[in-house]
């Protein structure tokens, strides 16, 4: 029952995204723009710069920028036509609303990230095939952290003035432990080091996901309903 409610919310968000493709198009265009901007910030062809040491961090910067752009609309877009009030009045718990939106965002972000991983690999000549499935698992774990935080803070800032400006102020500091772990894992994988060697970072990332998702589920009722 609970999972059906959760899936209804996620499917609704994904369906509306599929019909408009607003977030996907904007985030993909933004990711590619950032990839171009990084090539201006440092010269990838300069052998002194060792671009392969920067690539994991670069990839996650692209992901976190694109995520903030896509996630900021999670609850804000429900303000039109008072949809948010209707969702809150619907006979589902606030945590199902949160987890449904989180799941929808997670799938959306993964789709954006897999495409921009291709663009990244193509533009910066990075080989991602060596540990592809482990890389995908790392991206999934890091993306869950971004989606969990972003969805929660999107709910928290929905009634604020300047909500689009406040969201990055909250989510980037809060995400740093997860980003640190994701970057160190990705860096290892791109240099041929499997996840089993880096198990400390895996533990940090998984515990971050579990702790902050549970905390968000516990607090979302206070944030949305009061």
């Amino acid at each position, binding site marked *: 029952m609970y999972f059906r409610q959760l899936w209804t919310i996620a499917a609704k968000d994904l369906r509306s995204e599929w019909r408009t493709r607003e977030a996907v198009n904007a985030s993909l265009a933004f990711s590619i723009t950032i990839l171009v901007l990084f090539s201006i910030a440092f010269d990838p062809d300069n052998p002194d710069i060792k671009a392969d040491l920067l690539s994991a961090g670069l990839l996650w910067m692209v992901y976190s920028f694109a995520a903030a752009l896509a996630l900021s609309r999670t609850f804000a877009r429900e303000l039109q036509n008072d949809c948010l009030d209707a969702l809150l009045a619907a006979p589902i718990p606030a945590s199902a609303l949160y987890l449904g939106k989180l799941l929808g965002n997670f799938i959306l972000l993964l789709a954006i990230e897999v495409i921009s991983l291709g663009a990244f690999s193509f533009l910066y000549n990075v080989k991602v095939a060596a540990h592809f499935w482990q890389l995908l698992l790392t991206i999934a774990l890091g993306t869950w952290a971004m989606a969990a935080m972003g969805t929660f803070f999107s709910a928290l800032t929905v009634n604020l003035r300047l909500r689009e400006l406040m969201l990055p102020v*909250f989510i980037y500091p*809060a995400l740093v432990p997860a980003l640190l772990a994701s970057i160190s894992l990705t860096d290892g994988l791109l240099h041929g080091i499997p996840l089993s060697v880096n198990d400390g970072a895996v533990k940090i990332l998984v515990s971050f996901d579990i702790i902050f998702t549970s905390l968000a589920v516990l607090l979302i009722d206070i944030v949305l309903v009061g």
Partner: protein
Amino acid sequence: MREPIKYLLAVVSLGLALWVVYLIATTLPLEVVNVGAYQNIYFHVGSFATAFSGFFLGLAASLLYLKTGNFKYDSFAAGVNEIALLFATVGLAMGSIWGRYAWGIWWDWDPRLTSMLLCWLVYAGYLMMRGSVDEPSTRARLSAVLSIFGCLLVGFVYKSIDWFRTQHPPAVFAFRGGGGMGPGMDYPIMIAWGSTLCLGILLAMVRMEQAEMSREIDALRREVHTY
């Protein structure tokens, strides 16, 4: 009623601070290599201890607000978190001055420093958010939630020294195996902590009164508008 307590806190805070300065000037070991910059360690650690005490008090007050809905706890959380942020700033500034002499640089992207700066940013965000919500009960509710999140992040900050390699000296206060201070240097840190704590309580009391007063003025203004 509250006035004599404030004066007492001010006098105690100043007295304890002078005591630490006296100890530094007379008996405490001078670290020759770092030319005296080392002496601000007492207020560096003291300020951070006060800041963390404040963040935890803020968490307790936020939880109490969510349980009772009494706006007094919200004012208390706001005052205490703001003053804790002030002491975190002081602690960072003193650490930076020390780093200039000990490491030769003002700032280093050491995990300990980075995570403290992040903690500072989280609470700066807390204050910014308080400023951007007009409705008192929404503001209180959302800031209580943010305070709980912020405090959990402070927990990450506290453990970060063990998780990542760091060149910062080990934590002075820890639940197990803290320390790392030279002999005879522990108790001046406690005195400095006492001094900053008294000053912090005094400032937090003032801020709390101001918060309550501004809420009262808001309520009166609304009452006037209804006529």
